[in-house]
Each structure stands twice: as C-alpha cells, then as structure tokens.
C-alpha cells in the first residue's frame, strides 16, 4: 500500500499529513528487510491517526491536539553538539557503561564499547540492521502485541538505538546507560532499542534523556525487552527534557517463567511526557516491579499509562507511582491489570500517590482491573493530598525553616520509590537529582 491515507474518513491534521509525507520520502531509503515492518506499522497508524482524548488509553494526553506540527527528522549532529553532549549530567559520575546518542545519532567517540563483559553484546540498532542480525529482526516489534498509534509510529520511523543481548547465565554488574541528548535544532527523534536477557542472565539498563535547549523537539522512544526464563533486568528511565520538549515513550516487556523485571520511570522535566508500558507476564512465577515518579512544575504534563497482562500462574506485579506537583502541572496515572483465565494465584497490586504543592496542580488517576481467574489477589488504590501540616510544624519546631521542611518531606515522599533502586551509587545520584529539582522550585 503506497499511500495509506488514500481515503481518509476525516481530514488529516497538519501533523498527520506531514508524517505521511515524511514516511513516503524515507521509505525508499530504508533497509529492505525493514521496509515491510515499517509499512505495516505506518498503515496501522494511518487507520486511527494520532490518538486523541476519545481514545481511552490517551484520554488525558490528547496527542492529536498537542502535536500541532511535526519537526523534521534529525540530521546528523554537528561537532559542537557532540562537544556539549560531553556535559550530559544525568547520573554523571556514576560508573555506568555509557552509550551516547546526540540528536538521535549514535556517537561512537563518546561511547564506551570497550572491554565488553563476556557474554554481553551491545551494538547500535543501525549496525545490527546493516549486519542483518536475524534474531534481532525477528524480535523487533514482536515482543508483545501492542496496538498503539505512538508505538506504531516509532516502528514506522525508528532511527537509532541499541540492540543488547546478555548471554545465558551472564551477570553484568556495571549498568548500561543509554544517554540521549537532544540536538540544538528543532527535530523529531525516533529511538528504538531491543534488549534480550537470556536464560538466568542479569543486567541493569539505564535510559536517560536530556535536553538543555529551549527549542521545541519531539522524542518518540521505544524499548522492547525480552526476559527469558529466570532472567532479571532492572531498568531505569530518566527524562529530564528541555522545557518545550514532547516525549512519548513506549516500553514493551515479555517475561518468561521466574523472570524478574524492575522498572522505574522518573520524570524531571519536559512540556509533555508520556511513559506507556506494556508488560506481558507469560511465564509462571515471574515478577514485575513497576515504579514511577514525577516531579513537575510550571505547566508540565506527565502521563504514566500501564498495561499489565498476567497470563501465567503464580506471577506477581507491584506497581507504585508517585507524583509531586507544583504550580499548574498535571500528572496522569492510568493502570490496567488484566488477569487472563488460568492465571491463578496472581498477586497484582497497584498504587498511585500524588502530593500537591499548589492549588493549581492536577492529578488524574484511573486504575482498572479486569480479572478472568477466580483465585487471585488484586488491589489498587490512589491518594491525592498536600503535605502534612503537623509534620511541617514538628520539623519547624526543631529549627528547620519552612521551605527546607517542605523539601525534606517531599524528598521523603519520593524517596520510597527511589529506595527500591538496587545500585547504591545510582540511588544516591537520583536522590541528588530530586534535591536539586525541589530546591529550584
């Protein structure tokens, strides 16, 4: 199908029309083995177009209204942009294996691919595709069944990212950090990564996004993770985007028997941020811990949308999402737990807590349970409130000034999700980011 929107039922928005144009142009340049996947994805996208508030999953983040125009696909970064990326500050000083992407392009000279641990393979997506990595090709886009227009767009346009494979039984101690630094010009970045953790292997993946620029730019990122039997992955995603940035990120994971996933999405800045996660628990005894934290101010908007699909017996999921909202910022939490027939002894818990620091801030929480098995434990809840005045008084009565008392209590509120990060140096760096963010209120 050369022209997917041949007979649109409605008039396309400018952004949708532009996306179709760009897609038609890039299609000829695409690697042939990907062309089919990209076309199918774009066709799927074109059927619905950009999601809007009438789509339940996008109810509070109307992408059709928000995405007024499409920034051009990023051109390769200039040397000056690469130089400034050396100052990428998120988790600076933490001993991670850093792979740096500037303006959507992998920058080998800033990245550390030397002395890879035995059994660990890390290659850029473009290199994997150029080499025709057959295993990667069959996995990309197939880790879970995801019917979502933003993810479809990512598949249609995916530019750069990494393919990571951790061999069976291999334990990689040093966290692998993907550092995505926005370029200086308005642009759209489509980033895509695939992580395969083989049987009994273990690794830590950090994805950090930052942009110093006041320019408007758009990030559409997606990460697919395959956890084989008994595999374990801790994933941490930090978004500290520029003030005018729009960031939509999709996380797809499949968990085989006894696999362990710990995922933490941390939002520290950006005009519009959305983290959507599709977690497929396919194996018995698998465990998924999902956490999120937002510290928002101004008019920032962050949306965490979670689909947890329990399809196997004795699996567990624990979700905890916390937001601290100042000014007229907004946080959205949507969480849906699906327990399929036969997924007996499922234990699924989901909680969203919001701390409002300002009367103008807003929280929307929408948990859902859909249960088709009869011997399960599922629970969800949400709270929204202000700081406890009695605690502020107690701290002040010991001499702590009001602003500092509020910061301490707010850090404590967010601390609960940070404390669960396994690597101490990462945990300390995150706490420092929180303090910094709160003290610049």
């Amino acid at each position, binding site marked *: 199908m050369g022209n997917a929107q041949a007979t649109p039922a409605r008039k396309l928005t400018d952004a949708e029309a532009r996306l179709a144009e760009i897609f038609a142009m890039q299609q000829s340049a695409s690697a042939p083995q990907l062309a089919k996947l990209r076309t199918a994805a774009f066709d799927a996208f074109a059927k619905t177009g950009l999601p809007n508030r009438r789509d339940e999953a996008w109810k509070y983040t109307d992408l059709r209204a928000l995405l007024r125009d499409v920034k051009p696909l990023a051109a390769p970064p200039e040397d000056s942009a690469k130089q400034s990326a050396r100052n990428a500050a998120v988790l600076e000083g933490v001993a991670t294996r850093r792979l740096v992407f500037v303006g959507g392009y992998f920058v080998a000279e800033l990245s550390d691919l030397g002395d890879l641990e035995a059994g660990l393979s890390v290659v850029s997506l473009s290199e994997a595709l150029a080499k025709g990595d057959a295993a990667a090709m069959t996995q990309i886009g197939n880790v879970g069944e995801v019917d979502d227009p933003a993810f479809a767009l990512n598949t249609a346009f995916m530019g750069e990212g990494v393919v990571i494979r951790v061999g069976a039984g291999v334990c990689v101690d040093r966290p692998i950090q993907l550092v995505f630094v926005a370029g200086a010009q308005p642009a759209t970045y489509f980033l895509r990564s695939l992580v395969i953790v083989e049987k009994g292997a273990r690794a830590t993946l950090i994805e950090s996004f930052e942009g110093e620029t006041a320019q408007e730019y758009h990030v559409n990122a997606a990460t697919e993770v395959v956890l084989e039997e008994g595999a374990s992955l801790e994933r941490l995603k930090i978004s500290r985007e520029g003030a005018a940035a729009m960031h939509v990120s999709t996380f797809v994971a499949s968990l085989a028997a006894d696999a362990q996933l710990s995922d933490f999405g941390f939002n520290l800045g950006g005009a519009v941020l959305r983290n959507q996660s599709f977690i497929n628990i396919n194996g018995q005894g698998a465990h998924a811990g999902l956490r999120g934290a937002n510290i928002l101010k101004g008019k920032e908007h962050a949306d965490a949308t979670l689909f947890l699909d329990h399809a196997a017996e004795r699996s567990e999921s624990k979700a905890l999402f916390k937001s601290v909202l100042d000014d007229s910022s907004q946080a959205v939490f949507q969480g849906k737990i699906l327990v399929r027939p036969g997924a007996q002894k499922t234990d699924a818990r989901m909680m969203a807590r919001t701390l409002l620091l300002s009367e103008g801030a807003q929280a929307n929480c929408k948990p859902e349970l859909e249960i088709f098995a009869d011997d399960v434990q599922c629970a969800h809840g949400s709270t929204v409130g202000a700081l406890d005045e009695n605690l502020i008084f107690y*701290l002040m009565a010991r001499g702590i000034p009001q602003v500092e008392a509020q910061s301490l209590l707010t850090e404590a509120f967010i601390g*609960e999700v940070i404390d669960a990060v396994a690597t101490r140096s990462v945990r300390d760096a995150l706490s420092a980011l929180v303090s910094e963010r709160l003290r610049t209120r």
Partner: protein
Amino acid sequence: MTALLEIRDLKAEIAGKQILNGYDLTVKAGEVHAIMGPNGSGKSTLSYVLSGRPGYKITEGQALLAGADLSQMSVDERAAAGLFLAFQYPLEVPGVATMTFLRAALNAQRKKRGEEEMSSPDLIKRVKELAKILDMDMEMLRRPVNVGFSGGEKKRAETLQMMLLEPKLCILDETDSGLDIDALKVVSNGVNQLRSKDRGIVVITHYQRLLDYITPDVVHVQSAGRIVRTGGKELALELEETGYARYQSEAA
C-alpha cells in the same frame, strides 16, 4: 536580670475558643518549674502557643523569650532563639532519616544564630554519646525519625534531640505519659543533665511521679487557662493527696 521566659496576662484562642485566660509566668535561668493541672486546663495549649503552632492565636498579653517577643517569630526562629518543646506525642516522619533530621535541625539553628555548622563526624560522635546516656540503640537512629518507635522510645528520642540542640528553655509536655518506670528514670536522667544555671526547664505534667526524678524549684497549678496557685516542690505532693477537684471548682 531579664527573665528567660516571661508570660504576662496572656490570652490565646484556638478556632475562636479562648483557652488561655490571662496567663502569668516567669521562669528565670537556672530554674525548673512544674506546671500541673487537670486534663483540659490548657497545659498543652500553653506549650503550643509558645512554640507557635499554626491555629493557636495570641489575642492579648505577651510572651517573651529572653526579652524577645515570641509572637513576632516564626516557629523555626523560636527554636533557633532557644525554645524547645518536647512533644507529648512525638510524630513519626516516614522517609526522613533521623541523622538527616538532626543535622538539618542543628545546623539550621546554628546558621540562624551565625554560628559555625557542626560537621557530620562531630554530629555522629555527639549523637552516639547521647544515645549511650539515654540507653538507645544506634540502630534505631538509622531509621526514619520515630518510625516504628514505641512510646518510650519516642520520648527518649525527643530527649536526645533536646540534649543535642541545647536549648535555653525546655518545655516538656507530659513527657511522662506512656513511659514505664525504667524509661522514666532514663529520660529524667537526661533532663537532669540539662539542668544548668543558664537554662530554664518547664515540666508540664498531670502526675507527681515525674517530679520524683526531676525535682522542681517551683510548682504551679493551672486550671481553666491560667495559673491559680504557685508553691514549692511540696505543692506537688499535696496535689497527689488532694487531687485537682478544689482547683477546678475554684476556677468554675
């Protein structure tokens, strides 16, 4: 010499209801005063008015700390000026490590007074010394402030804070409530170590028991929001015999 605490004809209300009705009290440096009285006589209200708890409003009169008008200071400024209230029910502060809390409190006070901040190693050393005096396990102090502490442990922690911060004026609001006899002795021992010629201590209590361990110089009887009788330590013993009934009827 200026009194450490001088309360003159103080009237205060909460939510429009007057609780203190012309309160007069003078505490000089070096003195320990006990304020006793029946439930509902406004003993805790006095401590909250002095420390500046939101909602407690002075409508008339004055409360001066070393000559400075407390009503003109924020809660944290009062603390830095040397006022310490040991809470009747110390609060649990989830997620805030005890050491972080102690460091923030001590150094905020020192900063406000233009003094040098205490280094972390010095702080830890000092806290260890105090924990030993108060028979507290340092493990407890690695936890968040008061979280999971028993009533007695919270009172020990409160006393530790007080000893670390070295206030000019200590107000102990029913510190004996919820304490078993061993804890009472330990806490009293801590308070007695704070007795000095430069410091004033006000012990608010319902029972005479605490005063067996912290011997007051002056005992006051409070009823219906003001002091109705003042005497020496023997007054506490008399109250133990006669109860508060006659003061309540007197005030009514």
